[in-house]
Structure formats: structure tokens, C-alpha cells
């Protein structure tokens, strides 16, 4: 009798374990997607499983991965940051500008972070204080920033960026790209903040119910400000890395990262108001998107077709998230 009950308990805990595994898979579509991609490439493109290729993917995933982590902070707080592309575009032409290209290396690192943080602060002012639509505010901000980048570069950017910028983007520490360490550092910092710090709790509470958070004595305005400032600053960091890859100023750099960052976040199991995937899910999401793009390119699939696939991924992942929350 007792033994029977015990074994019953064990089976039910096994069933529960399987169920929670299945739940995680549905909650964070990036995990099964990543696994599926690796398996598929074993058949389609075995070369894509070699270490050099994987390291290239890792390096390429850094800018997207960074932006997505920042994006997720705003989305947890039921906001959005569509200005990340604008931040990167402006950071890029500024880094290629003589003032920073020939200036002290630290300037090339401080400026993008400060610029991104400032943009985030302005976004937050409009969104949290004036309570205007976050989509439109950050979209408008993006237009302003891209406009500024045209003004700064006179529409004809170019030039060489500081060597330090190139080093951080393309350098290696042993086998691993330095940029990947930057990404891991940011992911760790944000992950710990969300899981352990008061501000992380406040952000999640705010995303769950703004009115309850306000009446519950949480600093809602300040929390949204921090989320947007962090998103902006992290976009600035992504701007450094992306600029380092190409080494020069160009027009509208980072434009496609806006959509891709939403895709990575949603794939990672986070949606408007929070989610289950955490930062790790988002990292996986960024890897999925980058790996897929590389795989498709390797197979000779045209760029437009990649757009189609990326759109389908966002819709599919968002559909899963919506289904889950019902």
C-alpha cells in the first residue's frame, strides 16, 4: 500500500517534470528552436556545426543579443524601445567622426553609453511622465536620431573608427571573441538585476499591474526610467560593437536590429508585461536568429527570403506566448 503510493508519487513527479519541461519549451520557444536548428544543420549543412563557424555566429550575435536584452527590460515594464536603431545609427557616425576617431579611446566608449542613456531618459520622460504612446514616442525618437546622424555625417559618412573600438569588436581572448565577453557580462548583470535586486522586482511588478505598483508604494516612474536608460545605454554598447565590426561610418546602421530584437525577446519567452524565459532565453533567442540567418545564407537563400522567415518566427513565437497566457 505504502510502496504503491510512493511509486505513484514518483511517477506523478516524473509526469510533472515532463510537463514542466514541455511548459518551458512552449514558454521559451528559443530553446527547442535552437535545438532544432542544430539538428537540422547536421543534415543540411554539417559545416555549420564546426567550432569556427559557431564562434563566428557567437560574435555576430553580440549586437543583436545586447539590444534584445535592453529591449526586454522595456517590454517587461509594458513599454517598448523602437529607438535602439536610431541610437546605433547616431553612435556609428559619431564614432567615425574625427573627434572620436582620433580622440582618446575612452571617449569612444563613454560617448555611446552616455548618448544611449540620455536617449532612454528622454524616452522615459515622455512615456512615464507624459504617458504618451511608447511605440510612437520611441519611433519618433528613432526618426530624430537617424535625422541627426544624417546631419552629423552630412549624408556622406565614412572615415575610420578608433582602433580600440575595432579591438573590442573583433579581438579575441584565446578562442573566444572579446565581444562575447561583453555580452556575457551584460547578460549576467541584467539577469542578476532582474532576479535578485529590488529594482528587478519593481520592474516586474510594474509590468504586471501599473496601478497596483503605484498604490503599493513602488517608484513606478523611476523604474521605467531605469529600464529605458538601460535599454538606451545597452543599445549604445551594441553600437560600439557593430561599428567595430565594419570599422567605418555608414548610413542607417542598426536599422534591422529593431525588429530582430523584438523577435529575440519574444523567442526568449518574454512579452509585454513579463514572461518566463529570463535573460538566458533572450540570449538563446538572439543565437537562434543569428544562426538561422547564417545557415540560410550558407545555403544560398536570398536575403528577402530571410526576412519572410524572420517575420514568421516573430508571429509564431508571439502566437505561442499569447496562447500560453490564456
Amino acid at each position: 500500500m505504502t510502496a504503491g503510493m510512493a511509486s505513484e508519487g514518483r511517477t506523478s513527479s516524473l509526469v510533472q517534470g515532463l510537463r514542466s519541461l514541455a511548459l518551458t519549451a512552449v514558454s521559451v520557444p528559443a530553446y527547442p528552436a535552437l535545438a532544432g536548428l542544430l539538428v537540422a544543420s547536421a543534415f543540411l549543412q554539417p559545416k555549420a556545426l564546426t567550432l569556427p563557424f559557431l564562434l563566428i555566429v557567437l560574435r555576430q550575435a553580440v549586437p543583436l543579443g545586447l539590444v534584445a536584452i535592453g529591449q526586454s527590460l522595456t517590454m517587461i515594464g509594458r513599454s517598448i524601445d523602437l529607438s535602439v536603431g536610431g541610437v546605433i545609427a547616431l553612435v556609428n557616425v559619431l564614432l567615425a567622426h574625427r573627434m572620436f576617431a582620433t580622440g582618446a579611446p575612452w571617449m569612444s566608449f563613454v560617448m555611446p553609453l552616455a548618448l544611449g542613456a540620455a536617449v532612454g531618459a528622454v524616452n522615459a520622460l515622455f512615456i512615464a511622465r507624459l504617458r504618451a504612446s511608447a511605440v510612437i514616442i520611441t519611433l519618433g525618437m528613432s526618426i530624430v536620431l537617424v535625422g541627426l546622424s544624417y546631419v552629423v555625417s552630412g549624408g556622406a559618412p565614412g572615415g575610420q573608427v578608433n582602433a580600440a573600438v575595432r579591438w573590442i569588436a573583433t579581438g579575441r581572448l584565446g578562442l573566444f571573441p572579446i565581444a562575447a565577453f561583453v555580452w556575457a557580462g551584460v547578460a549576467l548583470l541584467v539577469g542578476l538585476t532582474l532576479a535578485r535586486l529590488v529594482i528587478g522586482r519593481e520592474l516586474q511588478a510594474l509590468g504586471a499591474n501599473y496601478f497596483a505598483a503605484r498604490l503599493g508604494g513602488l517608484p513606478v516612474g523611476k523604474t521605467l526610467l531605469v529600464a529605458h536608460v538601460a535599454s538606451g545605454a545597452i543599445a549604445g554598447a551594441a553600437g560600439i560593437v557593430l561599428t567595430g565590426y565594419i570599422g567605418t561610418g555608414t548610413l542607417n546602421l542598426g536599422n534591422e536590429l529593431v525588429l530582430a530584437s523584438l523577435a529575440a525577446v519574444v523567442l526568449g519567452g518574454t512579452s509585454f508585461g513579463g514572461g518566463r524565459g529570463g535573460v538566458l532565453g533572450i540570449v538563446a533567442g538572439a543565437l537562434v536568429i543569428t544562426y538561422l540567418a547564417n545557415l540560410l545564407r550558407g545555403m544560398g537563400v536570398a536575403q528577402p527570403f530571410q526576412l519572410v522567415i524572420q517575420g514568421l518566427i516573430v508571429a509564431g513565437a508571439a502566437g505561442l506566448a499569447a496562447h500560453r497566457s490564456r
Partner: protein
Amino acid sequence: MSILTSAHARQARRRSALPAVALAVLIAAGLAFTTPGAFSAQNIVNLLNQQSSVMAVTLGQTLVILAGGFDLSVGSVVSLTTAILSLEIHPLGAFALALVAAFLVGLANAVGIVRFRIHPILMTISTMTIVQGAALLLRPIPGGTVPAGLVAYANGTLFGLPLPIYAMVVLVLLTSLLLGGTRFGLHVYAVGGSPENAALGGVRAARVVGACYVLSALFACLGGINLAARIASGDPLVGASFAIDSVAATALGGTLLSGGMGSIGGSVAGVAVLALLANGLNFWNVSTHFQMLIKGALLIAAVSAHRRAAPGL
């Protein structure tokens, strides 16, 4: 509800357009005083003609926003439509294909948002990307020729005015009638106020919201046909700015981005503001780079007037 200017329902809807109308008049007056040529008949006609496509897209966007949504896929639909029309197949086939494609995009948005409850921003950003990809697949670089009839339409005039202007006016009138005079229009406002309550009150809310997305895609298609006629070729990226412009015009026109309050008249005024501003900046020799900057700032200013109960999307 902070922009309520009247306790009278229809008055409140109409008055939401007032700031945009005032702004349009203000810019027009500024133009008239500073630049003598601005109010030549030719300039006004050019302006109206140029705006005909944006106007069509904005009408659809206004329906969607009034119903409480967003449609960011309209720009890609415009691009796709020009790409299809420049395929150099049989004209009727081209038109049919463009309309069917737009209908399917609208339907996909509708099903994703209404049936699968995907957030409108995520859903329409997805279709925006997919349709952009499709447009690039069909026409990787600008070019091709559109059916001859279309070019004739773009160049044709009636009583000295280009045909696209008439088309635009007819479309605006039809949409105002749809919104202000029909059951469907009233139900669009109802679902924008609260989809759940509208459904309890006897409105088929899912169908109304879905229909708005389908109509929006079809309006974008009409905008695309009109644009293809004017540029006489296909361009896979030509619609890129239409999503932002149509949302900006709608917001400028006083329609609440959270839905339920606003008017077509407001959106017409919103398009006028954007057009007059671009025109004025040209006359005042402001570089296109700065124009972009100003447009972004205007967009921010326009939505900042609409304070909500809680911050959010």
C-alpha cells in the same frame, strides 16, 4: 479621455480634429506670409496629388487605430503592390493579384490578432517584414513598367485637376460615410471603447476588428496602386515611410492611439499638416536631413498630447 472637449458624443469626435485643423491653418498661413509662390494653384494641386497615396493609407490606419489597434504592415503592402503592378503581366491579372495579396495580408493580421490574440504591434511588425521580403523577391531593385492605363490615370485630368485628386476625395468621403453613417462605423468606435463590452452589447467585435485590418490592407493596396501610377514603375522600398506617416497623421489628427475616439476629418487634417510642413520646409530651404528630424519631433509632440491613465504601448 483627457482630450474630451464635449459631453456630446458626436461633437467630441468632431472636435478631436480641431488642433490638427488649427495647426494646418497655422502652417498654411506661415507659408502664405513667407513665400509668395506657396499658394499658387500649381503648388496646391501638386501637394494634393502627392498626398493622395498617403491619404489612402492613413484612412485605413485610422480605422484600425479607432478600433484599438495598430497596423505597421501598410508600408510593405504599398511596396508589394507597386512590385506586383510592375511585373508586366496582364493588367487585370496584376490588379487582381495585388488586391488578393493585400487581402491576404489583412486577413493574416486579423486572424493573428483576433483569433490568436497576438499583440497588434508584434503581429503587424511580423507581416511588415514578411511582405517586405515578398516585395524584394518580386522586384529586387526599382524598375519595370506598370500597365499603361495606370499611367494614363496618373496623368489624366478632369476640369484641370489630376484624376488622383478626385480618387482621393471620393475615398475620403466614402470612408467618412462608412465611419459616421453605417452600423459598421459605429461598431468600430464601440470596439475601440472596449471590445469586451461591445461584444456583450451585441457587437460582433472580432469581426469588426478583423474587418478593420482587412480594410487597412486594402486601403494600402489602393495607395500602392495610386503610387505605382504616379511613379510608373515598381519599387520594393517605396512604402517604407508609409506606416510611420499614416500613424503620425492619424495621431496628429486627434485620434486617440488607444482607440475609440477620433475622426476621418482629423486624419485628413493630419495629412495636411504633414504635407504643408514638408512643403514649407522645402520652401524655407531646410535640408532633408533636418526635415526628418523635425518630422520625428512633430510625431513625438503629437502623441504627447494624449495622456493615458497608465504609461504603456
